């Protein structure tokens, strides 16, 4: 079982705020799902290579070309930004 401190630490790493009174609930539900994963320890995967792309497709690159979006698309992107200033996205200070 995860400790409540661990739950709080995971939440911070995941950038998900959780209230103090929610810690116990998440402690229980996260732990029960993690327990469910322990079954896999029984599988021998000694020399098995992990899956990369499931149908075996190799890395593919498109031509290194600039593709301009049309004005409507650009405006649409800007309209969705919560806070803008002088054409830049505004955020709170990092530190």
């Amino acid at each position, binding site marked *: 079982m995860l400790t409540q401190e661990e739950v709080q630490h*995971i939440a*911070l790493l995941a950038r998900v705020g959780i209230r103090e009174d929610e810690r116990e609930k998440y402690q229980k539900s996260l732990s029960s799902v993690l327990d469910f994963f322990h079954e896999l320890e029984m*599988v021998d995967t000694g020399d098995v290579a992990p899956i990369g*792309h499931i149908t075996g497709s190799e890395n593919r690159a498109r031509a290194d070309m600039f593709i301009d979006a049309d004005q409507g*698309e650009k405006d649409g992107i800007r*309209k969705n930004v919560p806070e803008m200033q002088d054409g830049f*996205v505004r955020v709170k200070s990092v530190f």
Partner: protein
Amino acid sequence: MIRELHNKLISGEITAVDLTKKYLKTIEEKESEFGAYLTLMEESALKEAEIVDEKIKRGETIDLLAGIPGAIKDNICIAGVRTTAGSKILDNYIAPYDATVIKKLKSVDAIFLGKTNLDEFAMGSSTENSAYQKTKNPLDVTRVPGGSSGGSAASVAGGEAVFALGSDTGGSIRQPASFCGLVGLKPTYGRVSRYGLIAMASSFDQIGPFGTSVEDVAIVFSRLVGHDTMDATSAESGNNKPFEEYLTGDIKGLTIGVPKEYFSEKLDPRVRKVTDEALNRFKKLGANVKEISLSYSKYALPVYYIIVLSEVSSNLARFDGIKYGLSINDDENSSEETTTLLETYLDTRRIGFGEEVKRRIMLGTYVLSAGYYDAYYLKAQKVRALIKKDFENAFKDVDMIFSPTTPEPAFHFGEKVDDPLMMYLSDIYTVTANLAGVPALSFPMGTIQEDGKNLPIGGQLMGKWFDEETILRTADTFERSYNGEILEK
């Protein structure tokens, strides 16, 4: 149904505008009961329909899907239309561009009636996890329509759309198709471009169609496929023959594999009975049935969930309150001590995401973190390789694999919503197709009686990679035989 409507459109028996109006009227009458849609697109739908009518009037050749009204799952972007993914964090998000599948459907003049409800970010198996509303199963409104594409399934089953698009990460098209008595197809991974689909788990997600018949699903599917430069994981489609032209009604000589692991003693005897009847029908239609083994399938659920959670935690990092969507930027709503950018992240995601989404993001973050990566994610990707090997071996002997789609018919509201593990178990038969990347189709194979009602249950056919033709043809043959159109031997 689509072909019939198409013939009526080109003969002038009906107009596209009348057809669209008819569906909008059903929506008006039924929507308060079913709750399938999150956003309606009445105005643009009628405009699109007018264009189709003009083309018919001018004598232009129109596509089979032109003028046919469909519904789109609300995690697929349509330019200028609100796209929520069933989450409050995207409550005010207006998609600035069309998903590739939408561009393709627009190019053949299909009509969009609206955007349909789903479990938040497609995480769930009952659509109860939507941040907006509950969608009812039109066949029995005390039951769930399945999920996560529950709104799309309910719209078609309730007569509120001719076809619908959903997305399938672990069964989110096939399970609701099974619960609502529809046909639903999850294509081979890479068959359909994911560009413009709000990502849940990128190595599993595929967009696919719902319809009331196999032919309808084949018609829509033909118009979705193909390589797209905007999705590097999409594949060349190979041949250009539309899938509806493969539906010959002949499955003689094909071999259907039945995995013994899927038919344990725990299987509901009512489901077993319907499945056995379906197998008998396949045999009478000339197919061979062979027992096979998918020995690693018992590990499918833990492998699936480890990979899903990992990809979820990474994919949903983009919802940060900075670029779009909900942004909690004031101290009033904050439960944090800091006043920096970190506060915006923590508050926005605490308020914007629902419980299951937060749970999955945290679990994914945990299993990917230093010290646990090897034990969870890497281990899961290795077992996934063994599961794929199972399928490669099976397909040496059989042309496709058959099982029930779901271990039970549609369940009641509230039955599983409080227990994530119980909910995860509804995906037991469907996740392996996503793990292996193979195409899989659910079609109505029979009914089960419960509370005096005949509830549908789906049969699932899984095909070889990029061989949707065979499973479509087989399910179509079954359907026509079930309806008495094809006689068995």
